[in-house]
Every structure is written in C-alpha cells, then in structure tokens.
C-alpha cells in the first residue's frame, strides 16, 4: 500500500485527535466501571490489568520493564491457582499482563489482541462498560492500527455512546489514511455515516457515505462498495428520496452478486422502503420468507417488528398477535446488539399496534422507543415515536398513508427482491 505522506512518524500530527484519554482525562477514577460491573474479587484483577495496559500505552511501563514483574508473576500464579482453567478470564488476563510487563519489548499488536480477548469475555459476562474500556485500551495500545480504533468506535456507537464513538471513528479514518489502510478508512467512513444517519444528521451521513463509496470504487473494493451502497440506500429511504433509494438498492444487489450473505438483509431493508410507500401486500410475503433464515436475536427482532407493522397495516389480526408475542419477548433481551436496534424496532411495533387499535401496546412501544431513542441520541426515531405517541393518546391511527413515491426502478427492484428471498436465502451482516 502506498503512503501519501513523507513523514516517518507512526501517527499524523493532530494533537487534539489523540489527546483523550491518555493526555487529557475525563472525570472519575480510571476504569471505575470495572468495579461496578465485574462481580466479586475478580474486579480488582481486571482493573489492575486494564491500568497496566493504559500505563504501558502512555509510555510509563516502557521505560522500566521488569520492575514489578515479580508482583505480576506471583499474582498470575495466584489467579491460576484460584480460578483454574475453567474461567476463560484467567488465561486472557495473565497473558495480557505478561505481555505488558515485557515493557519496551512488548508487541503492541499482541497487547491489543489481548485486550480484545478480555473485551470478548466481558461482553459474554454482560459487563458492557468493561468491554468498551478494553476495546478502547486495544486501540490505545496499538494506535497506528486503524482497525482497533474502528472496533472501539463501532462498539461505542452500538452502546449509544455517540460522542465517544465519533471520536474513535474519526481517529480510525485519520490513522487509516496515514497508514494507507483503505479498507479500514472505508469502514470508518461507513460507520461514521451510519452513526450520523442514526442521529438524524442525514446531510453529514450522505456526505460520508458518498466518500466511502468513491473510496471503495477507487480501490476496487467491490465488497465494501456493495455494503456502503446498501447503507446509502437506507439513508435515502430515511430522507424520503425513494427513487434514489431504489436505484441504490439495485446497485447494491448488483455489487453483492448472487449468493452474497448480505442479500436477505438487503431484501429486508427494501421492505422498509415499501412500508414507507404503503406497499404492505408485497412486503408481508418477503418478511415471512426472510424470517426462518435469520437466527441472531437482533436480526429476528427487526424482521418481526416489520411483520407486526405490516400485519397491522393490513389488519391481519392473527399474524399481528402471534408475531407481537415473540417480538416483545426479544425486546427484553439484555444484549447490546438487541438494544442497538430498539429505537427503530419499537417504532415499528408501535405503528403495528396503533393500526389495529391496540392502544395499550402502541402506547407502551412508543413510550419505550422515545425513552431509548433519547438515551441513544437516535433523534429521527425519537421524533417519530413522539408523533406516534401523540396520535395514540388521541386514539388515532398512525400508519403511513399510501402514496405513489416509487421511481422507475421500482418494478425491477420488486422482482429482484422476490428472487433474492426465494432463491438465495442466507444470513449475513454488512458494514
């Protein structure tokens, strides 16, 4: 990969971008959330290793390797003795602590990967804040690798911590340019664009996604071009530019190619467009066909919510009622991935319930959507939920009026979507 700068420095000279959290810190004890989330005595062990990694990233450990090695060695032995090999945390922590204590000889990539191992453990243990701290620690340990910064940014975005997510995603994009990692730059621009779209900043979102599409095209990253075009399509749907959305969806189908794992997801997103166009009769069969091929709770939840909304609009009470039960159960799953989908999902559930005049469910969905969308900074969903709730409180239906907003590509898109769903149903993910 060809660099576009002559400097030998590992990072670009942009001090404000890299000041937090190693130079300028936030309020609160470093890593305090670990003590709040990790149960029992293990919390102090996790906190100790996190702090060693951050000190090492600051350069504190690099100058004096081995000074405290005996303490860590004894501690590692104690941990292994206490926990044995049953607990996956013990080997992850000891490996990471051991690497950091090598001081200047420690390998930044190994430290970062060790942090991601602990991050994985924390996610499994439901300690989301701890997982985020270790994701950030990975990015700080290996600051010249844009992919770690991108991972941290994406995780923060999914956790609804948008302000910090913007910082890490921008840092990822900047470092990727510096290190000529075009794929990482594209991923960062893509994620940043999606984040702005989630917040209702469609102008910025479009600008970033268009940059990401051009970058992918310039460097012949067809897979990435498809994924970004897919996201661009979703933004056109949200901005009401339905003709452009249809063109983008066709491009995405073409770029993905037959058998691509993201096709069911794209088909589902095309259905979202149809829901906004009031084309409920064509949407329901696609949703029903996609559902059996999705197994992750967050993906099933999105489709179930769309079915509730569609069934409501079609006044298909039995489909509405049976789907509502499964969807409402999934809404209460306490995973970060499910939580990230909730603002949009709850709005769909509210629409569906209001269409069949199930006012209690509609009010509950819109109220919860409003609360979560406000917490996550999902401004567009918050606004929709607020309007929905007002209508429900007046016992008025809220379904989108049917209108002719489709463009010349609509017919081809319908055929392509149907063909995708019935001929190549698979699971996948984009971005």
């Amino acid at each position, binding site marked *: 990969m060809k660099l576009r700068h002559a400097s030998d420095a590992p990072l670009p000279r942009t*001090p*404000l971008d890299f*000041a937090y959290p190693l130079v*300028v810190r936030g*309020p609160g*004890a470093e890593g305090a959330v670990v*003590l709040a989330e990790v149960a029992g*005595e293990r919390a102090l062990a996790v906190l100790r290793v996190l702090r060693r990694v951050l000190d090492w990233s*600051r350069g504190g450990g690099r100058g004096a390797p081995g000074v405290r090695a005996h303490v860590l060695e004894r501690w590692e032995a104690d941990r292994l003795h206490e926990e044995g090999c049953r607990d996956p945390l013990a080997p992850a922590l000891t490996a990471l602590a051991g690497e950091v204590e090598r001081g200047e000889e420690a390998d930044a990539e190994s430290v970062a990967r060790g942090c991601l191992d602990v991050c994985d453990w924390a996610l499994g243990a439901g300690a989301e804040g701890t997982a985020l701290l270790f994701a950030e620690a990975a990015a700080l340990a290996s600051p010249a690798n844009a992919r770690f910064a991108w991972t941290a940014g994406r995780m923060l975005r999914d956790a609804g911590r948008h302000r910090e997510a913007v910082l890490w995603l921008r840092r990822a994009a900047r470092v990727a340019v510096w290190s000529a990692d075009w794929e990482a730059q594209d991923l960062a621009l893509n994620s940043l664009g999606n984040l702005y779209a989630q917040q209702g900043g469609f102008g910025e979102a479009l600008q970033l996604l268009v940059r990401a599409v051009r970058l992918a095209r310039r460097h012949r990253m067809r897979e990435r071009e498809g994924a970004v075009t897919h996201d661009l399509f979703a933004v056109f749907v949200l901005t009401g530019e339905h003709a452009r959305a249809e063109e983008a969806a066709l491009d995405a189908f073409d770029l993905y190619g037959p058998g691509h794992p993201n096709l069911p997801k794209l088909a589902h997103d095309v259905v979202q467009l149809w829901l906004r166009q009031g084309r409920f009769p064509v949407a329901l069969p696609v949703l029903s066909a996609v559902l059996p091929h999705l197994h992750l709770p967050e993906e099933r939840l999105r489709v179930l919510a769309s079915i509730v909304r569609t069934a409501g609009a079609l006044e298909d009470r039995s489909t509405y009622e049976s789907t509502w039960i499964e969807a409402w159960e999934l809404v209460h799953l306490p995973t970060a991935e499910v939580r990230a989908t909730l603002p949009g999902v709850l709005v769909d559930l509210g629409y569906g319930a209001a269409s069949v005049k199930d006012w209690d469910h509609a009010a509950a969905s819109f109220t919860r959507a409003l609360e979560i969308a406000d917490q996550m900074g999902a401004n567009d969903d918050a606004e929709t939920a607020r309007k929905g709730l007002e209508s429900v409180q007046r016992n008025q239906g809220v379904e989108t009026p049917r209108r002719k907003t489709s463009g010349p590509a609509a017919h081809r898109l319908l055929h392509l979507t149907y063909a995708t769903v019935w001929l190549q149903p698979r699971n996948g993910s984009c971005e």
Partner: protein
Amino acid sequence: MMKRTTREVLLLDSPALAPLAALAPPFEARVLDWAALAQAARRAPPSAVVVIDPFTAGDPFVLDPRVRELIERVRMVPVVARVPFAPGYAGAARTLLDWGASEIVDAELEGTPDAIHARLLSVHAQPLKRVVEGSLSRFVSMDALTLVRAAAEVAVDGGTALDLARIFDARERTVAGWCAREGLPPPRRLLAWLRLVLALALLEDPRRSVVSAALSAGYTDYSFRRALRELVGAGATPRERSPRQALAAFNAELRARRERARPAPAA
C-alpha cells in the same frame, strides 16, 4: 494571577504511606495526622491532592469512618485512597468510589513515589471536571469536551491560554482555531468560565469565605465579583450564585455560538 507551579499533596501520617513522602515535582508532600489533614484539606487550593490509607489501624479490611466525612467535606480537592488490589478488598474499593473518592491506587504496584506519580497527575482538576460535565450540554462534541477538560486542568493551576496550548503541544493560535471550530469561546474566555465555576463550587462549602474561594480560584475579591457580573449577570452576591447557574449561562453561550456557526437557510 500567579500560576501555581507546585501541587501540594496532603499525605496521611500512616506507615503504609510513609514511602510516598519524597514525591517528585510538581508534587510536594506534607505529612499530617487525621485531625490536621482534615483541617488542611478544607483550606487547600483545588490544585492540591489528599492521599490517605482508608483502613482502620486495627483491622486492615475495615474502612475508617473518618474517610467518608473527609471526602464529603472537601469536594473540590481530589481524595486518593491506597487500596491493596488483593482478595478481600474489592468491596472497600467500590465503597470508596461510591463515597466520592477521586481515585484508588494499587498499594502493591503504585506504592512508591515514582509509581504513584502518574496516578496523582490523573486526578488533577477531577472535582472541577465532574462539576462541569454534570451540567454540560449533550450537544458539546468530544473534541470540545477534551478542550474543556484541559481548560479545567489549567484553571485549577491558575494557568493561562499558553498553558492550555502546552498541554496539546500546540500554538495558542491553533488552540483558538480548535475552539472556534468546536463552538467554544476563545481560550482566554473559556478559562475565565472555568475559573468562575471553580470559585462558585469552592463557595458551596459554607465554611469558606468569599475571599478564600476567590483567592483559591486565582481571583482577588473584586475581580471575582466583576467576572461574576460579566459572565453570569448582575443582581446577586457571590454566595447567592451556584456553579449550576454559571454552567447554565455557559451552556447558553455555547448554544448561541452553535447557532451563529450554523449556515443560514437558503433563500
């Protein structure tokens, strides 16, 4: 005003903390017993740090009841507690942070002057950052927040816009450009806001006089009243004002700057 070049560390006279008496600059340790420490902490400037061994002399697992009282009384001076990161101490560590301790240090790995140095630097201005961020608009970007945090560190030391630029290893003009881009006032005005919030936060302790709060925040009595009038408005004495009111005025200024920066709608 004079910039503080040293940071006082009020160290509890305890065998566990004895090795920390010889701290490297900018820190200067004063070893005090509990009674003297509590008194000195109340009058200490916000650039000071209190370091304690929070456990009772008789039982190394039981927190001393005086710790909570100390933390509650000296809200604008960070309190750092030495805790063994060993089995049996996780509960105490959680309790200390719940009470409002600014930081806990690892007794085994951070028990020497060299090792604790970075931890002491990290708590600098932490109480002021907490007060400010608790009321700061959610529309403030992360870069703006980094600048505000850095400005809090400078304000606590009585520093200038030049000191703010030094934190980032940048020029004053560069930092002014960042402030403008992020919708913040220019560095000097940003520091003036933080100094004012600091003085009002210090004044929340009813035992502190207006003059003492003003001096600790780098003002004379007169210049404090003038800054209050200019930034928050006339019509009330310093005692009648709260940091929350100052932060509301600060947020209003930030909002006005954001509105001005927004492009005008096309005709």
